[in-house]
Each structure stands twice: as C-alpha cells, then as structure tokens.
C-alpha cells in the first residue's frame, strides 16, 4: 500500500530512497537518523573550505582562541603580565630571548600580547553577548508585534543609533569612571541597537511566511511562534553579525583603552599597551607595533570569518 512518490526534482532523494530499502523495524543508528544534518554540515564545510579568505579568517580566529585559552602556559614570562619590573632590560629591541622586545618596565612584550588575548576575548564575548541578548528579543517583539509597541522600541533604537556609539560609550565611561568593567558595560549598553534593527527587519519578512500562518491555524500561541518559527529563521544573520561584531567590539574596547578609559596599566590590554607605547614612537617602534598587529589580525580574522559565514548561510549564494 505504501507507494511513496519519488520525484526526480529533489537531488537528495537518492539518499532517502537508498535508506528506504533498509527500512526495517530495527532502531536506526545515529548516522541514519541525522543523515540530513550531517549532509548539511558537510555542505557548509565544503563551501567554507573553497574560499581562501574564509579559511584565513578561521585560522586567525582559532589562533586567537588558542592564545586566549592557553596564554599563561604559552607565554615565556607569565609574570610580565602582572607588572613585573626588570629595569635592566627595559626597552630592548626584539631578540631571541624577547621576540617582541621589552617595554619601559622591562616586561616581555611577547608575553604581554599573548596574555592580552584572553582579556580581548572576554571583552568581545561580553559586549556582543549582551548586545544580542538585549537586541534580539526586542527586535523580534518589535517586528512581530507591530503597532505602538514597535513604534516605541524602534524610536528608542533610532535614538541610540543617531549618536555615534563610541562617543556615547565614552560619555558613559567618563561618568562611571575608567576601568575595564565600566568600559565593557558602556560598550554593551550602546551595542544592542544594531541587533534590534537587524532582527526586526528579518522578523518582518519571516512573519509573512506561510508556515507562520500555518502554525497559527493549528492554534499556536504567539510565544510558541516566536520561539519555534521566527527565531530559528532569524538565526543566520544574527550569527554573522555576532562574529563580525566580535572584531568591532575588541577594537572599540582597545580604542577606549587607548585614550585611557579602558583597562588600566599594567593590565595586558592591547589598547592600553599602545596608549603607553605612543610616547615611545618611533624609536622604540616594537612596543606599539606588536600589540597593534595583534588587534589588527584579530579584527581581520573575525571579519573574514563573518564574511565567510554569511556566504554559506545566505540561501541566495547557495549554489549547490
């Protein structure tokens, strides 16, 4: 009686029918049950690997994550990060013992750059995390709810977007007092409007989809629709934005550090290091060069990764 229609129009149908023949009463293995997801992930990996810039971005990000995770083990002079002073070795150019040279306190810059990775990761994660956590729900509510609710949320969002984010963060830190915690807090406060905008636009288009109406026709409540239908379909652009924002957040925190409002010396924060190093330019060039290069490569890595993710997650660019 079971005569499934197999149309030639679906390429993966071959995979389905192949398993069909073995359809027995035995429980299916993990691989069989998740064949679809496995294929999808392999497709993503395949497309990602084809692009050089995506792979470069991924390499840089992985390198950065490794440094953040194992920094204290990798750094040759871990004590350099906590303000150890060795005046006999101060401002030494790069040598075999100090690959990136030493700073005005004689601390090893190489060690300090490595130890700074963890601070930067922490900053990036918290800022984008809070930004998304606040922005995404607001965006979904604004987009799905419409009416005055949307008007209120979007006007407030626009208010925030109208003021340059860094300037606003600057004002907040100045009010709260300098320090890395305040700096992160201030940046998180100005970071969410971007997510509201993005998610609201996406929600507006997703909510017109037939499957949302279909869910309504079977009696789904609004929270159910938001969680099960709208959010999963907004996820791709959110992931892309978050990966790109990681780089921007690190850069912004470094900027605040550079003008002395972020991490305070001797904390090994890249922005703060450049801030001090500025006075030693250009004779002691290595002092600012290496923390600067660290910021540059990290931000570049996250941006390339985000670009690559957008290419594979965007259905329009999906030529399978």
């Amino acid at each position, binding site marked *: *009686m*079971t*005569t*499934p*229609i*197999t*149309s*030639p*129009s*679906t*390429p*993966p*149908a*071959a*995979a*389905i029918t192949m*398993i*069909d023949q073995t*359809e027995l009463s035995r429980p*299916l293995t993990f691989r*069989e*049950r*998740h*064949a*679809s997801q496995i*294929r999808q992930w*392999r*497709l993503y990996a*395949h*497309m990602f690997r084809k692009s050089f810039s995506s792979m470069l971005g991924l390499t840089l990000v992985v390198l950065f994550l490794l440094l953040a995770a194992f920094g204290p083990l990798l750094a040759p002079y871990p004590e350099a990060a906590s303000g150890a002073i060795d005046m006999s070795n101060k401002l030494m150019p790069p040598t075999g013992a100090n690959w990136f040279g030493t700073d005005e306190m004689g601390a090893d810059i190489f060690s300090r750059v490595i130890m700074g990775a963890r601070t930067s990761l922490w900053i990036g994660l918290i800022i984008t995390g809070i930004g998304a956590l606040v922005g995404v729900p607001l965006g979904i509510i604004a987009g799905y709810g419409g009416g005055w609710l949307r008007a209120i949320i979007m006007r407030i969002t626009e208010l925030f977007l109208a003021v340059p984010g860094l300037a606003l963060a600057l004002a907040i830190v100045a009010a709260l007092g300098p320090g890395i915690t305040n700096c992160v807090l201030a940046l998180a406060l100005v970071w969410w409007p971007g997510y509201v905008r993005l998610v609201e636009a996406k929600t507006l288009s997703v909510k017109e*989809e*037939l*499957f949302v*109406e*279909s*869910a*309504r*026709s*079977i*009696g*789904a*409540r609004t929270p*159910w629709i938001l969680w*099960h*239908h709208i959010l*999963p*379909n907004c996820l791709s652009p959110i992931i892309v934005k978050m990966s790109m924002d990681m780089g921007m957040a690190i850069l912004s925190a470094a900027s605040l550090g550079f003008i002395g409002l972020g991490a305070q010396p001797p904390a090994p924060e890249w922005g703060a290091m450049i801030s001090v190093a500025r006075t030693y330019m250009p004779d002691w060039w290595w002092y600012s060069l290496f923390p600067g290069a660290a910021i540059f490569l990290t931000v570049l890595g996250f941006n390339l990764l985000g670009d690559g993710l957008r290419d594979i997650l965007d259905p329009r660019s999906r*030529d*399978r």
Partner: protein
Amino acid sequence: MTGPLLDIRDYRLDIGTFDGPVHVLKGINLTVNRGDTLGIVGESGSGKTVLVRSVLGIGPKNSRVVEGGITFDGQDITRLSEKDWTKIRGIRISMIFQDPMTYLNPLFTVGRQISDVIAAHEKAAGQGVSPKAARRARTEELLDQVGLPNPSMLFGQYPHQLSGGMRQRVLIAMALAGKPDLLIADEPTTALDVTVQAQVLDLINSLVEKLNLTVVMISHDIGAIATVAKRCAVMYRGEIVEQGLTADILSRPQHEYTRRLLAAVPDIDAAAAKIPAEPVAPEPAGPGALLEAIDLRKIYRSQSGAEVAAVKGISLSVRTGEIFGVVGESGSGKSTLARMLLRLIEPTSGDIIFDGRNISGLAGEPLRQMRRHMQFVFQNPHSALNGRHTIGDAIGEPLRIQTGMSRRDIEARAEALLDIVQLPKMFKYRYPHELSGGQKQRVCIARAIALNPRLLILDEPTSALDISVQAQVLDFLQQLRAELNLTYVFISHNLAVIRQICDRTIVMKRGEIVEQGETERLFLSPQQDYTRTLIESGRKTSRAANLADHAG
C-alpha cells in the same frame, strides 16, 4: 534555408553539485524546422527548462556539456562566447517567461522597456540606434500585434497598472521586438487565469500564422501544448521518451509514462465517479450543516482611504460529510473567504457558525480550542513548512501545542500519521527541502489531520503540484475523507478538478457568489454567463488534452 532551424544532437548536460554530478539531460535529440511549433511536455524536474535555457545560452551555473551539441541555423552554439551570444539572444532566439510580473521592471513604463529592447537589438546588430519616435512607432506596432487595445496610451503605463494577461502580452511583444526566428515560450500560461490562458494561447497561435514564427513551447499542461503545438515531445527525467505529431501522441501514446500522464489529466467533461460520502444529508441546510457563513464581508482600506471589498456578503452552508467546492479566478476573494472561515483573517462583518456555534466572536483560549476541529491545507506546500523543522517536528507540532501528550506518544502518533498519508516512517528525520512537492503536500495533510479535525479547508491543494502528482493527491484526499469522516471545503481555479471531486460548488467573482448548486448541474446547465465562460475556457485546454479519451 535548407536544414533544420534548431538541431539538438545527443545533448548531454551535467550539473555539478555537492553530491556529485547530476545528469540533467541524457542524450537529447530534437530538431525544429522553420515554421514548426514544437511543444515539450514534462513534469517539474524533467529538465525541460534547462534544455530550452541551454538553447539560449542561459543554462544553469556549474553545468557541463558532456556530449553532443546544439546547432542553430547551421551555427554550432554549444560553446559560444558571451559576446557572440548577444548577436543571437533576443534577435534570432527570444524567450517568453513564466511569470510576467517578475520579468518586467516595475520602475519603467511598458513603452520604455520595449523601446530599450529595440535599441539594444539595433546596437547589437551594428546599426545606429533609430530615433525615439521611430522606436515608439515600432513599439506601438508591436503592442498592437499582440492584441493589446489602445497601444499609444499603454506606452506610458507601468507594469502594475496592467493585468496578468496584459503583462504576458507585453512580454510577448518584447520577445518579438527583435523579429526572432525562434520563439521559446517557457510555461507562458501557468501563472494566468483560465480565461486569460485561453486568450494567450490563441494569441500565440495567431502570431505563428501571421509572422510565420517558429515556436518551442514548454509546459506541464498538456492541454496548453495541444492547443498550440503541431509536434510535441514528452520529457521524463532528462530524456525525451516520445516525440511526434501532437495528435498522434495524444490519441496513441506509445511510452508508458505518456500514458500515465494522459490518464492523470482530469477531464472537465467527465462526470466523476465520486465516492459517495457516508452520511449524505439529502435535506437542505439545517441540522446537517457543519459550517455556515452568514453575510460575510471583508473590506480592506487602502492608505488613501479608499475601500476595497475583497468579499462582499457571502452566505454559504457546508453539510457534514460533503466536499464543498469554491471556484473562481485570481482576485475573486476565494482565499480571503477561506481564511475568514478559519478566523485567520478577521471578517469585517458577518457570522461564522461551526457545528451550531457562532465562532465569529471567539478570541483567546476558546478560539485556540476551536482550531482543533477545523484545519487548513495551504496552496503551496513548499512554504507552508518551516524549513528548519524536521518532518517529524512539523507533524508533531499540532499535538505539542494542543495536547498534553508525552514526547514519546507524539513520536508514535507522528509515525502513525506518516503511515496514513503513505510516506515512509524514515521521513520524520528529513527536512522539507529534501522532499518532492507531492510528498510535502502529504506532510501538510498529515499535519492538518493530526488533531482529528472534522473540517478541512483546502486552498488549491494541488495547484503547485505536477499533474500526475495532483491525481494521486486527489485520490488520496477522497480516500482519507471516507476513512476519517471528514468534511472538505475545496478551493480551486481548476474546473476539471472541482468537477471530479466536489458535491456542491459555488462560483465566485469579485467577492460575490455568481452561481451555486450541485456540481453536476452547474457543469451541465450553467445559469450565469460568467460560469459559462469559465467552463468554456477550461474546456478549451481540457478537451484538447483529452483527445485520447474521445478518440478511443
């Protein structure tokens, strides 16, 4: 001038995908002589569109010609450079596309778009571009040729001001602008209403005669092909399984697939052998009525304040156990009506009575409870399923929302439902994009019957599907109704389908009921002019396709 105009020899085309190369075209042999009209019939995925697009050099990306080639008027065009294509595309070979809206730029006037095409052709041909006035004259001549009234006024109008049929005519005019030798029509009538379909097909026929055009038309609608094409080829899974004179193929199909395809075409002139519903209530509406609508209205207010009535005071009564047909062309308000019956759209005024209870005032929890008993099957199964949910999740969703069943019970029920709609249990781990259209529609039906509803509203459930799949789904729907004791409201623009399965039918036009009654009576002796026109237009293509039945 000797030799065929278009000659396709042993053409094999592969498309490279992640899962390896897909053999889309497998050794196509096809010749088209000057003055020929060739129809290519095939279901979606049979490779017919890829074939004609290859003829125009706009084949899919990542494709590779494995073997064979295409010769156009003695010139090998299999591997032409982009520069050489500009001398052929639109000038020697033109194409009409399926959806007339998306192929016209909404920002420019119709006249401007056609004159631009003329200018481009002149440039490509190496002559100077003729002055604006001359191009305007030529454009108006073209618009007149495709039977559009008042070309000089039309010249300054924008696409959105035209109806679907007029837009398709504009596209045809545009395709004729370069005086092509070969015109390719890719499903030129699929997106149009029945009455307009017939007109567009007539137009193509008259153009063939007047301009001595050579036409290759592809369609999944055998009726449309039969109306236009003298010769026809049947494509199936990348192969041409049969070709010859259209009349021969229709009356004496040789290949097994062609026979199946022809058998699946519903015949507008055949009184259907219906499976009678079990509890046929012969007495008129009253105790037997499951769903009633009283004077339903929906009025939309545009931003300028103008009121547009989508549905104007409709009253109807659906008896328990019957299949109630709603037929009408696009814009007749039938989808709006269906959504109002389910309270997916708020009616402006009027009452909906389901099983003796007025549901038009319900809100919140009572409305949610109500939804268990009446379910909707959407027109387009491709977008009615959330692409990020597995089939198992999709079928289990109504149970998770409406019942307190445990996860394990829901899994079991979803498997049982897959069984009912005759799909393998394996499918619960699959995602919608991995299924074919017919399979997806079965999933949508499984989802709709998960809560054991009493009423199903089916909004064009087969119009997005191929003909042979449509027949299967229709059979299956009738079977299911008998098994589960369901009542259907069946909405369609396809009269043959309506006649095949509906007990009673209403005909809608511009938000009003034109005529209603027993389906058979409606088809045998329509009382209203509109119904007659509708049936005549439907008959035109249907009859051509059903030559086989009448001949044998």
